[in-house]
Each structure stands twice: as structure tokens, then as C-alpha cells.
């Protein structure tokens, strides 16, 4: 519980940075105008934030068993956030929830007529 080792300092820096990144993700949630840009704010700084906090924790605990577990957390977080962000983005775009006035280029709506069957990957 003291600033004895450089490792503790590194852990503290990682934890603080991770918390700040998570806060930025939350701020983005509130500030961004439409769902898709909100998702950028949501999934991304949040992934790095979780990675940093978990890194800080493993630097703090310094226990090989725990490090394996935390590595698993990071991998799972990365694997699942991809899936959920794609699913939500697709549902939102198909529902026409996109603010077209915010788009500079839109290469999908032009050929949206060509619909693949539902449930296609």
C-alpha cells in the first residue's frame, strides 16, 4: 500500500489512464449526435481503457495465475466488443437511424436496394 516500487507507480499510471479513457467513452456517449458516432466513442476508448486498467491490476498483483486470467479478460473483451458493435451498427443502419446530413460520403445507401437475404452473414 505504499509507493515502494516502480511497478506500483506504473500500475497507478495505467489505472488512472484507463479510468480517464472510460470517462471519455462516457462523455462521448452523452455528447455525440447520432448512434453510430456514439458507438465510436463507446466501444473504442473503452477497450483501451479496460486493457489499461487490467494491465495496471496485473502489475499491482504480480501473480502469474492472475495474469493468465486477466489476459483472458482482455481477449474476451476484444472478441466480444467487435461482435456487439457490428450487430448494433448494422441494426441501426438498416433501421435508417443514420443522420445522413452528417455523412460526407455514403457508399452504402446508394446500393442498399441489393438486399441479401435476412440472416446472411
Amino acid at each position: 500500500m505504499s509507493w515502494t516500487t516502480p511497478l506500483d507507480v506504473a500500475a497507478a499510471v495505467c489505472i488512472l489512464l484507463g479510468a480517464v479513457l472510460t470517462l471519455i467513452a462516457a462523455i462521448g456517449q452523452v455528447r455525440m449526435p447520432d448512434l453510430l458516432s456514439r458507438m465510436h466513442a463507446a466501444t473504442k476508448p473503452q477497450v483501451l481503457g479496460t486493457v489499461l486498467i487490467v494491465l495496471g491490476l496485473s502489475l499491482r498483483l504480480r501473480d502469474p495465475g492472475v495474469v493468465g486470467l486477466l489476459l483472458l479478460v482482455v481477449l474476451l473483451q476484444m472478441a466480444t466488443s467487435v461482435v456487439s458493435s457490428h450487430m448494433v451498427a448494422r441494426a441501426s443502419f438498416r433501421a435508417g437511424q443514420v443522420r445522413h446530413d452528417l455523412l460526407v460520403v455514403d457508399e452504402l445507401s446508394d446500393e442498399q436496394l441489393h438486399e441479401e437475404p435476412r440472416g446472411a452473414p
Partner: protein
Amino acid sequence: MSPVLRTRRDGSTRPARYRAVQPLAVLWLTLVWLAMWGEVSPLLVVGGVLVAVAVCVAFPLPPIDIASGLRPLALARLVARFLVDLVRASIQVSGVVLRRRPVRNAVVAVDLESSSDFVMTLVAAMLSLIPGSVVVEARRSTHTLYLHVLDVPDEESAERFRRDALDLEQRVLRALPPHAPEEAGA
């Protein structure tokens, strides 16, 4: 989900069968099992292998053939570049979130060169993890990814993003070269 059908030599069909127990999957599941226990002992390893085999038999998945030609150096470069991109783009997105200017976005279509589903999945996953882009739609027939990109002020930067994405695909292809010949025939 309907089973994939394969044609026998005499013309009748049978459901596609693949080896359910894949060594890589068993290895991975055993590692997960050991990570959950947090320690390594012979009994745990044996139990982990048993559980992994049971999982593979209960939930069979089609195999991924990546072991064909893994290039460690290119793979290391891919991972390193990915981590750098992750950090850099996180900072960028944080800047976009915090600044006061309105944000402009774009939906960009990226036509992938490779026709392998595995490469497409990998590129899509990495592009999703790198901040500033989300895969909105993936079209398997033409191997096109439609990405929603944050903070694109003009068409030129949309073009730049497309080049970056194709570069990423090139790095993936260099790290995991797919075997070309059997894909056309299958």
C-alpha cells in the same frame, strides 16, 4: 442452421462432416481452463483436455486453416502495428469527443482483394477494434466491407482511410498467406 451438403462421387448428397476435435481448439480451451484455475498441475491439465474435447464434440465448428503458412515476423509486425494504431486512434477519438467542433462522418466501402472469408473476418475485426471505424455491413458475395468512419472532413480523407484499410489487409495477407489454389475449386 441447416447443415452444409456435400456431393458424394455417385451423385447423392450427405451432410458435410468435419473433424470436430481440432488440436488447436483443444489447446486453446485447455489454456483457458488453466487460466481459470490459476495454477498448473497434472490433474488440471488432464481435466482441461477432457473438458476441451467434450466441448469440441458438443459444439463442433468448421475448421480454420491458418496453420498452412504462418509467418512469425510478419505476424509480429501486424500485431505491433495494430497496437500502435489502437493507441493512436484512441487518442484521436478522444480528441474528437472532447473538442467542440461538430463532427462529420462517412460510410466508406472497402473492396477487399482476398476472397477468403477468414481474412475478411480478421480485417473486419481489426478495423472494428481500431477506433474511428465500425463495420456497418459486410457483403460476403463481393467481399466488401462497409465501414462507418468517424471524423471525415472531406472526400480525400475518406480515400485515405480506404487506403489504410487496404494496407491493413495486405499486412494480414503477408502474415497469414492463404493457400490460393483450392479456393477457386471449392
